[in-house]
């Protein structure tokens, strides 16, 4: 009511301008804005430089990794790859102290388990925070957000005491998996997504039809959460795959993850960089494949949620 009474008064106070000129000026303004927002050749050139800079270290790694140990110490740089990549890669794979296949399998096991666990528990908690009313939910959510800023890796000494001395899990993959099973960031991410994209009416409809809480979660909450859950899984997978600090402390050469194996490779072959950098390429290939398959989702995930893993 108030709105309808206000509208005529404002129309009286501000007389409407003649429509035609207004429309024309708007159109011309938009046209100019578009013109100015058109990328210049300089813009493209800049991006090409940035992307070449992003790819160059990987290319360099392949250059060295496909040469031999003598080619490193030459003063003239060979800008084309040599033919020794496979033999260097074989040296990495066959080095018994590096345990390459074991490391690859371990990285897959740890990253998959951690991603699945984080997504499951984050979806459950995020659904509750976003869509269910319960006493204490506000302070709990604030607690979750506050813990996102706490660097949990500062607790490595007690973590080591607990995992190694109390539970006897030194060198065991469980020691890497257990501390990573939940993530405050994951809960926050799913809460944000579900509160924006899951309408309350859907949940109410399921409840009226007599579905229990868990059935409602399973048949309404989970399908709605799927896109955000997939992105979260990607980020957690990559963060776990590239994680070094804690695995380096608790795992040993007999049972490493890939980054730990790379560190072993460096201490074994520090003279011969062609083998070390062949190992770098080998260990990076799995994530590059993942990037080709899911790079688009990564881009939109970062742009939707401002994530940092």
């Amino acid at each position: 009511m108030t709105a309808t009474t206000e509208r005529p008064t404002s129309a009286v106070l501000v007389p409407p301008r003649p429509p035609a000129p207004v429309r024309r000026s708007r159109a011309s303004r938009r046209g100019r804005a578009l013109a100015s927002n058109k990328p210049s050749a300089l813009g493209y050139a800049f991006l090409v430089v940035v992307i070449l800079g992003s790819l160059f270290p990987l290319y360099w790694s392949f250059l060295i990794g496909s040469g031999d140990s003598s080619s490193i110490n030459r003063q003239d740089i060979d800008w084309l790859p040599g033919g020794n990549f496979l033999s260097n890669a074989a040296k990495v794979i066959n080095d018994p102290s590096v345990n390459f296949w074991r490391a690859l399998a371990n990285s897959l096991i740890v990253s998959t388990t951690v991603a699945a666990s984080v997504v499951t528990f984050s979806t459950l908690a995020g659904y509750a925070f976003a869509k269910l009313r319960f006493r204490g939910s506000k302070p709990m959510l604030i607690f979750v957000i506050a813990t996102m800023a706490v660097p949990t890796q500062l607790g490595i000494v007690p973590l080591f005491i607990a995992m190694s001395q109390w539970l006897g899990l030194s060198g065991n993959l469980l020691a890497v998996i257990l501390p990573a099973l939940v993530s405050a960031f994951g809960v926050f991410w799913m809460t944000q997504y579900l509160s924006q994209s899951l309408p309350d009416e859907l949940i109410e409809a399921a409840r009226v039809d007599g579905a229990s809480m868990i059935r409602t979660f399973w048949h309404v909450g989970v399908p709605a959460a799927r896109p955000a859950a997939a992105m979260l899984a990607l980020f957690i997978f990559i963060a776990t795959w590239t994680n070094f600090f804690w695995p380096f402390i608790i795992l040993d050469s007999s049972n490493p993850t890939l980054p730990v194996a790379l560190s072993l490779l460096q201490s074994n072959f520090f003279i011969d960089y062609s083998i070390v950098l062949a190992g770098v390429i080998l260990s990076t290939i799995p994530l590059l494949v993942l990037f080709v398959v899911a790079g688009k989702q990564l881009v939109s995930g970062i742009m939707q949620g401002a994530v940092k893993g």
Partner: protein
Amino acid sequence: MSTLSLVEERAVRRIAIGHTLNRWDVKLSPYLYVSPFFVLFALTGLFPLLYTAYVSVFDWHIIGGQGDFVGLGNFEWVLAQEKFWISLRNSFSIFLLSAVPQVILALIIAAVLDQNLRSKTFWRMGVLVPYVVAPVAVALIFSNMFGDQYGLINNLLGRIGLDPVGWHSQVVPSHLAIATMVNFRWTGYNALIFLAAMQAVPRDYYEAAMLDGAGRVRQFLSITVPSLRPTLIFVIITSTIGGLQIFDEPRMYDSAGTGGASSQWLTITMYIYNQGFGPAGGGQFGHAAAAAWILFLIIIVVGLINLAATRTIASSGSRSAS
């Protein structure tokens, strides 16, 4: 008559039981759903952090375990170590050398990506490639490129007639090399965060500025940057928390992993690692725990300073824009 009432009674009771169950279902379910997170976080996140405080006031060794109560002795010991202060200096230096150019470059990349590009996804994915290279791998590649004797960078410097730089042997060059690794991995990532924020800036602002005769650079500084204030704060805070804890890159910068012959690039987290788990003189859990708490407090203080500084800078920027 009596049988009918019995049936009715049963039905009523069944409904009543259903109601009670439903009420409990509604009441308890939310707590059940959030409890796995809180229980696991308490065990694996909160407990280690608090127990670090406990360990830090005892004489505690990896082999002997808990020893005598020493009060703040471990903190005094750590603060009296020259290496601790060197590592603190190095961490700050590497952090500044990475954070500042990274944010500036990411803003510029984002501004270019914000234009009406052809095949947007290609360019966006292109700047993100380094993100999937593990820090350990990045460190191995760059430690080769920044090799003191036969490294690519010194080779190229030599070709244009410059003297080789001691990228490993000297303090500031080693920080520059490590900061370059961090920038390599995170600049594109942060550019995409900024890009998302830029796309939320109403286009009318730019139209208005253009009518006032503002050029592109002026628009960028007076409209884009102030509008990104919350995002800037977010990126700067997260890169502070991450940057001051840097470990992977400096640890892998040479094969010894000790931060250089005279601790040129020893960082605080490396110092904590060496106290707790290092090959020589390691196993000092009391010292490591004390150093971890000191780092934690430093991160909180620097985070708060950053927050205050970013707020002032960004709001003064928006004031000058209006």
